[in-house]
């Protein structure tokens, strides 16, 4: 049985009082779909400003932010993907998102209707879906979202990219630095790196100790020179 529910979270272009959502047809306030009181701590309606600021004006349109809350409201999951979607009436960046309400073990599917969305949002929605379905390996943002979809629920609330200004801590897979979005080293990778360093340090200490021991030990008498024996 497929129980997945998916809703578009629409950009607040007119600076309205409510965040609006759509199932691809009818537009309703998001609160009718997801009561604010039931929203988990740290739930985002779009791309955090921190990521947009790090990317700068030119790259920010490419950002894809995703977050996942396993074991939400019982045993269900919340999954959100958002991307910048142009500007509002006063020139602020606004966001378009997809919210998935999933059963345990279910993964989000990006085969969604968007024909019923307002015309201005359709192109952004199609671009988001296209990027999520594409297998291009050089586009790391959707790749990071796909990896978040596959992340085991035991990690708890998680995001595709590390956030430093979030009020709530999230497990994350990627980090955004000056060289762009890069995969964070896994726990195993970190442990391996740490043990390599420990081995190197131990080896250096060992060599130093051995050298010290040699310096302090009584030296055997060494005779050098040439001895000649005459055989007659």
């Amino acid at each position, binding site marked *: 049985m497929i129980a997945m529910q998916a809703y578009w979270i629409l*950009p*607040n272009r007119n*600076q*309205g*009082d*409510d*965040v609006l959502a759509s199932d691809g047809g009818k537009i309703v306030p*998001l*609160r009718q779909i997801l009561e*604010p*009181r039931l*929203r988990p*701590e*740290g*739930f*985002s*309606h*779009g*791309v*955090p*400003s*921190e990521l*947009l*600021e790090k*990317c*700068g*004006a030119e790259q*920010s349109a490419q950002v894809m932010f995703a977050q996942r809350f396993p074991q939400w409201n019982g045993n269900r999951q919340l999954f959100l993907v*958002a991307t*910048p979607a142009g500007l*509002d009436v*006063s*020139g*602020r*960046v*606004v*966001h378009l998102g997809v919210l998935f309400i999933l059963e345990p073990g279910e993964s989000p599917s990006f085969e969604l209707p968007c024909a019923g969305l307002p015309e201005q949002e359709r192109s952004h929605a199609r671009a988001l879906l296209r990027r999520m379905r594409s297998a291009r390996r050089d586009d790391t943002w959707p790749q990071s979202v796909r990896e978040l979809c596959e992340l085991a629920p035991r990690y708890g609330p998680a995001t595709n990219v590390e956030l430093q*200004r*979030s*009020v*709530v801590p999230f497990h994350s897979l990627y980090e955004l630095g000056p060289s762009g979005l890069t995969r964070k080293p896994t726990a195993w990778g970190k442990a391996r790196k740490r043990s390599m360093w420990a081995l190197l340090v131990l080896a250096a200490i060992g060599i130093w100790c051995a050298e010290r021991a040699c310096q302090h030990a009584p030296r055997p008498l060494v005779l050098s020179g040439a001895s000649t024996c005459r055989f007659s």
Partner: protein
Amino acid sequence: MTPLGLKTFRIFLLLASAPGIERHLTRLVKAALDWWSGKKIAVIGPTASGKDSFLARLQNREIPPVHANSAMGEKVKSFPVKLTLSNHRVIAITCKGVINIGGETDYRDAPSGWLAVCKGADVVFYIMTVSDLSRKKFRKGRRIRQDLDWLLTALPHLKPDALLHILINKIDTQIESHTDYQLLAQELAHDLAELDRTVRTVLHPYEARYTGATLISMKNKQIYTRAINSVFRAVYSAFQETAPSQKAG
């Protein structure tokens, strides 16, 4: 400053001198400077009311080029605020534990929303715009009134001596779109009085925590500086008025 900005500021001064617009004119004495130091503030208000711009102004920086509709509660690094007063004294405050959050009602009512931001705050700044004032959005059923109703339910959960001040942003736009400033001053005085009455009625029995409303412009730096000085004075003088009654209670 552009000639338009300067003209707007001069008219603002004229408006501020009109009866009913600015009431708190106590001097910001040393005690006030001491009182403000180390205070924690919360900034809430509807979307696009100017919360981000207020934070930028407090940090003495321009609004960043990539400016976004806030999507989630985000921490802001501690920063110093320095306000130069007219008598060349400087008020230095460190803003700590600042959280920037969106203005849609979704954020207001979410568990990690406005209430989480306001908990522990000594002063809550509620920002609205001058068009919210002129369109009477503080009347029953409308957005500002809903927020005031929310504040009434939130106040018992805040610090017992937490104060509320309303900032009415974008006065510069109103000045620029008017030519009859005397009429504008009359309208503003009338609307401010109505807002004041509404806030006091809605927030009863916590009306003593309300320290007043101030017209401000985050965009026009001169208006901002003058208005924020007035706000700091207003909050402190209201604190002095409420403190004895709180102690007695």
